[in-house]
């Protein structure tokens, strides 16, 4: 399905970025895999395309670290789906990683656009 507007970035998302985006998305409230992917794509105005091949392993990894937890719930259109929610540990990680992200962006910017 060709996308209109911005050129989507696929398969080259920065290492660790997906984890941060998932945490951020779940910061709003519990969601299942499909919603998470949809939300990331929508919010980035389709610039960031979430590869499902990476999404589910990432979810598993985060759950393994105890940053998110999962439960089975019912989706908007009455389907059984596996929901994820942020754990308190995950919330702290979200804050820490956001700060870290800002630092990186600022650092990269200082190099790209010297004052």
């Amino acid at each position, binding site marked *: 399905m060709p996308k209109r507007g911005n050129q989507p970035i696929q398969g080259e998302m920065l290492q660790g970025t997906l984890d941060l985006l998932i945490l951020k998305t779940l910061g709003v409230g519990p969601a*299942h895999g499909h919603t998470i992917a949809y939300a990331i794509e929508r919010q980035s105005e389709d610039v960031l395309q979430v590869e499902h091949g990476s999404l589910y392993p990432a979810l598993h990894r985060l759950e*393994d670290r105890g940053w998110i937890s999962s439960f089975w719930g019912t989706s908007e259109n009455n389907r059984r789906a*596996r929901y994820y929610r942020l754990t308190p540990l995950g919330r702290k990680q979200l804050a820490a990683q956001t700060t870290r992200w800002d630092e990186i962006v600022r650092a990269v910017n200082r190099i790209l656009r010297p004052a």
Partner: protein
Amino acid sequence: MSLKKFFRRSAWDDERSRELDAYVAIETDENIARGMSPADARDAARRKLGNATLVREEIYQMNTVTIVDAAWRDVKYGARLLRLNPGFALVAILSLALGIGANTAIFQLLDAVRIRTLPVKSPEELVEIRIAAPVGGRTGQFSGRTPSLTNPLWEQMRDRQQVFSDVFAWSGAGFDLTTSGEARTAQGLWVSGDFFKGLGVSALLGRTIAAADDRRGCQAPPAVLGYGFWQREYGGDASVVGRSITLDGHSFDIVGVAPASFFGVEVGRAFDVAVPLCAEPFSRGARTALDKKDVWFLGAMGRLKPGVSMEQARAQLAAVSASTFQETLPAYRPQDAKHYLEFKLGAYPAGTGISQLRRQYESPLWLLLATTGLVLLIACANLANLMLARATAREREIAVRLAIGASRGRIVRQLVAESLLIAAIGAAAGAMLAQSLSRFLVDFLTTSNNRVFVALTLDWRIFAFTAALGVLTCVVFGLVPAIRATGAAPGAAMKAGSRGATDTKERFGMRRALVVAQVALSLVLVVGAVLFVRSLRNLMTLDAGFQQEGILVVNMDLRRTGIPEERRSAVFAEITSRVAALPGVASAAQAFIVPVSGSGWNNNIVIDGKKYTENVNFNSVSPGYFRTMGTPVLAGRDFDERDAPGADKTAIVTQLFARKFFPGAAPLGRTFQIDEAPGRPQPLYRIVGIVKDTKYTDLREEMTPLVFFDAAQEEKPDPFLQVVLRSSAPLTSITPSVTAALGEVNRNIIVQFQTLPSMVRDSLLRERLMATLSGFFGALAALIATIGLYGVMSYTVARRRNEIGIRMALGADRRDVVRLVMGEAGALLVAGVIVGTALAIAAARTAATLLFGLHPGDPATLAIAAGGLGAIAMLASYVPALRAARLEPTEALREE
């Protein structure tokens, strides 16, 4: 990554797959909502998700320790392959199990009786003290299992030696636990005061016997129980210390229990109860040997003082010998006395204890170990053959796997896992087999009056060694060809079809060589088996001069009856006639010595004043003995009332005696004397009958000249009586009536029953053991070799399908094909038999002393063994030959 997740990873995987399904469902719903058809919607959803399996695999990997997981999968795959080839698996595992198990079992036993040191303090310091030189020349009475010294000799030695920190003596004896009725014997031990101290063994409960307990004339001697006896008789009750135990009718105070590991100093026996040596008169009464200079019944050991070498000990013992023997000279005839005074005491390492079992069974056990070693070799050869065949058969499979992308390393790992799986199962089965086989051996060696005790534990060294050998065989022969196969270009291997490209001449040559080796080695074992079985048969069927079937031996102990010495003969006669009169008893008679019981009584004789140096065996029997035993009286008469106590002494002799001492003359009516020690009466015996030769102490021995005296003329019999009776009724129905009849004579008679056939069987224990085990291993070896030959021939036939097809198409008939295959099998067999015969002749020499009535290189035996093995092996090759002959030429050729 937690271990919990590792084990729950398949549950996790299910969860993931459900999650991914949910995703597809939701996406499909949305696509439908966007206006797609349901089928398109689902396809689009699937496309969007991508490769779901890959996702799952990635997550699965995250939960996995890769090596463990891969190894586990290899093992599972290997197990599946083994299940698919049950024949291969069974033969491989059984070969290994038998090879490993049999070796471990025999070695354990050998280690226990031969190599292992006594479980006491510093066993290497222990030294056995006995007469070193000159050999033989001791006369007198011998009793116990280590009749090295007399008590006066022991006491002199004990007081004179200076090289040992402790010296101690012991004697094994059966102690009767009952006071009347049927005897119940405990393995007793008379020990000198320092026995436990010298060995460094302290009590598990209470105390052991101390020096203070062993004083001449002790009145209330203590008893120490052996651990096994304590468990058996008292259920391990700790309150046993302080109670008393009746031994040979005397009460002893139990003062302690020995630790479980301590069985005494004789390997192969466990003592039940130990009492001080000073208590010996309680059992032997007036016949006490404590002051007898010619009753040999004690074994002695010492513990070397620190810093004293074995040489110093020997030198010192030799130095005190002259005075020691001078001091204890028995009332010997001059030439015996001269010999006695020349004796020297010697010292021998005794760290591994003393053992009669060892003397009797050491060479059979080594021989059996060699046998099981051969079995292991044959099993390994068979395994190698199987592995080679399998590697060849799997070349195509390996080629396919390489072609679709498996790495070489991965395939080799898989093959190692399979080999190790076989080896592991085989080794485990071998360990179990070893334990049951050892137990079987110990049970086999245990007879009614000889309880064998051997501390058996799984010997890890030998088990590890044999198991490693098996594993190595598996891995080397399974893997090397496989690695070579992985080296070949997959295309070539696949193109070559059913005929493996790497199936080189050498490899098949190797398999043929292995079969020849198997046949040769198994022929050695089969020859051994036939030799031992025929030896046993020779012993069982030889004419012993008596009929053993239906004879019951009744042993009576009259020590506690109080019957005075002078009345004993009369009581003995009464008992004998009562027993003979019992219903079901055909005849009964007294016998001082029962043939083949191992006991003996001999001396030299004097005829008309002339001394003969040849030993003559004696026995003392009552009238009816020859009828009871089924020994024909050839001339003269049996004993009867004419041979009364006061009348002229008479004797009955055997044919051999007559031929030896009265050659060419009529011996009836002639007289002879026993060459008694000076001062003892030498009555004249007149020969009144001649009987057939009979075996005396042992079935294996040559017939010896034998003289029977009339028991009624014995003036001062010991308070022991032995009666043999013949009955056709089951012996269980006879024993109660005999016991009842004895009770009527005197309530305090202690009685023990044994059947003559069981005594004969027990006396042939070693022969039976060798025949049974060598027969078993021989059959096993033949079976394994046959399987090997069958495997190779089947493979040959499969490999030569095309050739055979062409031959048949060109006019060869089925008989030609059978001949072709059988010819090849025959060639292998003949090669194996030739090598095997040479090996067998060489090997049989080592067993010469264990054979009876056979030469080690007995041609009939070799012929039977080679013929039998050949027949079975040819039969096994006939099956593939027939298969080849049934080949349809068109089909065989079409496959090309």
